[in-house]
């Protein structure tokens, strides 16, 4: 297989096109701009649609329109832009539409900064929009994993008729790494039962809608969706467990931060401290079984994030607060160093 040296943002775009994405609607924002620029160059030749929208709000609603007709559709942005998209994401979820949204996170709140961050964890996993709903959230840690995550996201979005997000960050989006594009033969999902692509007088008219004025009908639409979520929680979790079999200290981290943590874990092992890494690759659903497996021998857990501590809540919930969970993070665009994380591990190791 051919190996290409590619920037993360461009690899995301290329993977989407290869995964059968037929349209991209976006709005410029740092640090994801290369993604849209790549789409502008490539999408037309690939027989698809690229359109720069007048706003993030318009872009996500264009995605909603295209997805309604059964076409694989995508948008991408960075943190402040994702906030603007949240209305549309809620409508997409409430209308049971598949779509892929990429967030190449930067520091917040407000305009924040343009350096890498993971402070949109809560937004992505708990509340990307109003109402009861979830979206699938994938957290790749390398350019290659971003490619794989895009392919999976399109597939699962179609399979479950729901929005899927790639939660990347400015570091992953901007870094260049060797990447291979697997042979992709996207699963064909039959959308003829719901897509609004013109009935041709051959079927009843289809309606894409999220409005239910009768509370019992709205409740049923939500509880039906939550039954689907239950299946997803059982079947779609994914995580990497690294040196966890005998670990005393289990460090939990996702995305680019997990690579920093892996270096720190290796350094701790070299110093005789039994550290391990738990890295969720799906943030929703959170890999509950996997973290409990990883934490079996652990005496303490440490959550390392590029935020003030957001995933740590899911870590505590997942292990039912059965062990102490500590936190180390840098935020605002500051990337934690392996030395800093090693220092935390050693500090915790000293008090075991």
């Amino acid at each position, binding site marked *: 297989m051919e190996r290409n040296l590619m920037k993360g943002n461009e690899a995301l775009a290329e993977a989407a096109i290869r995964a059968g994405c037929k*349209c991209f609607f976006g709005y410029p924002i740092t640090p994801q701009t290369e993604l849209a620029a790549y789409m502008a160059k490539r999408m037309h030749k690939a027989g698809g649609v690229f359109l720069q929208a007048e706003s993030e709000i318009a872009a996500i609603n264009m995605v909603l*329109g295209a997805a*309604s007709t059964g076409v694989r559709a995508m948008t991408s942005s960075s943190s402040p832009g994702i906030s603007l998209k949240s209305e549309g994401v809620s409508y997409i979820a409430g209308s049971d539409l598949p779509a892929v949204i990429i967030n190449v996170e930067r520091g917040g709140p407000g305009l924040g900064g343009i350096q890498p961050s993971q402070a949109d964890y809560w937004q992505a996993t708990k509340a990307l929009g109003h109402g009861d709903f979830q979206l699938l959230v994938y957290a790749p840690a390398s350019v290659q994993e971003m490619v794989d995550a895009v392919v999976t996201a399109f597939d699962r979005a179609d399979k479950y008729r729901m929005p899927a997000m790639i939660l990347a960050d400015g570091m992953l989006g901007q870094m260049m790494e060797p990447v291979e594009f697997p042979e992709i033969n996207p699963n064909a999902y039959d959308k003829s039962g719901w897509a609004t692509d013109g009935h041709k*007088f051959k079927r009843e008219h289809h309606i894409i809608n999220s409005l239910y004025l009768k509370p019992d009908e709205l409740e049923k639409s939500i509880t039906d969706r939550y039954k689907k979520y239950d299946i997803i929680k059982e079947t779609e979790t994914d995580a990497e467990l690294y040196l966890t079999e005998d670990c005393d200290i289990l460090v939990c981290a996702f995305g680019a931060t997990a690579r920093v943590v892996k270096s720190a874990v290796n350094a701790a092992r070299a110093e005789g401290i039994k550290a391990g890494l738990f890295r969720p690759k799906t943030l929703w659903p959170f890999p509950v079984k996997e973290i409990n497996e990883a934490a079996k021998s652990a005496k303490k857990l440490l959550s390392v994030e590029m935020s003030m501590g957001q995933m740590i809540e899911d870590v505590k919930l997942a292990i039912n607060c059965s062990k102490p969970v500590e936190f180390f993070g840098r935020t605002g665009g500051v990337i934690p160093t392996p030395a800093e994380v090693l220092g935390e591990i050693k500090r915790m190791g000293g008090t075991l």
Partner: protein
Amino acid sequence: MAVVFERPKSLIDIPTHYCPGCTHGIVHRILCEVIDEMGIEGDTIGVCPVGCSVMAYDYFNCDMIEAAHGRAPAVATGVKRTNPDKYVFTYQGDGDLAAIGTAETVHSATRGENIVVIFINNTIYGMTGGQMAPTTLPGQVTQTTPFGRSPQLAGYPVKVCEMLSQLTGTAYAERVAVDTVPHINAAKKAIRKAFENQKAGKGFSIVEVLSTCPTNWGLAPADAIKRLQDEMIPYYPLGVYKDVEEGVFANAEGGNE
């Protein structure tokens, strides 16, 4: 016995939720007559707004999408760009199109998006119980302008056809009314023209329909029609504001992918 008048096939035969005297029903009917006459129901996708016509998806027999408030032109853009051979229309009220959705309206027009926009201007927010709309007339009493709309306080109404006619991407903008039979016939003709424009790929077409809201105006239906004639038409003159016969891209310069 020969049938000389019947319900359009693309208008589903169920009671609507509209108030007595509301003119949405007239506009629904003439829109569906056009869809029937062109034989395009099977190739048409409509996009509903948030507002009184939010549930129009239950009335039109073509495929329908319910958009977020103001976003119908963006949703329609997503549909049309990926299905250029289909007919796509939005059906929007004044708050939806000219307040919260102004950006979507202006930019779909300036892109020359090849869609039809049916714009219901009744100078008020109907669904939420009669608040000031972007098209509420100066002096008009609403729930949120209890002493009459003061331009000093609440600004001036948006004249949508006048505004959009300034954009190169707008192929066709006409303001019509549904107060009399001749006006209704003219309104239908305008809607037909808008769909024919889409068929010919001419660009963005909007038909602004001056309509009534007896309930929130606090008027009997006949008095509401009279208000439309006496107060609205003078402020919002009827007529064709833009009509680019050759289509908006006939002389387009620049890259053609």
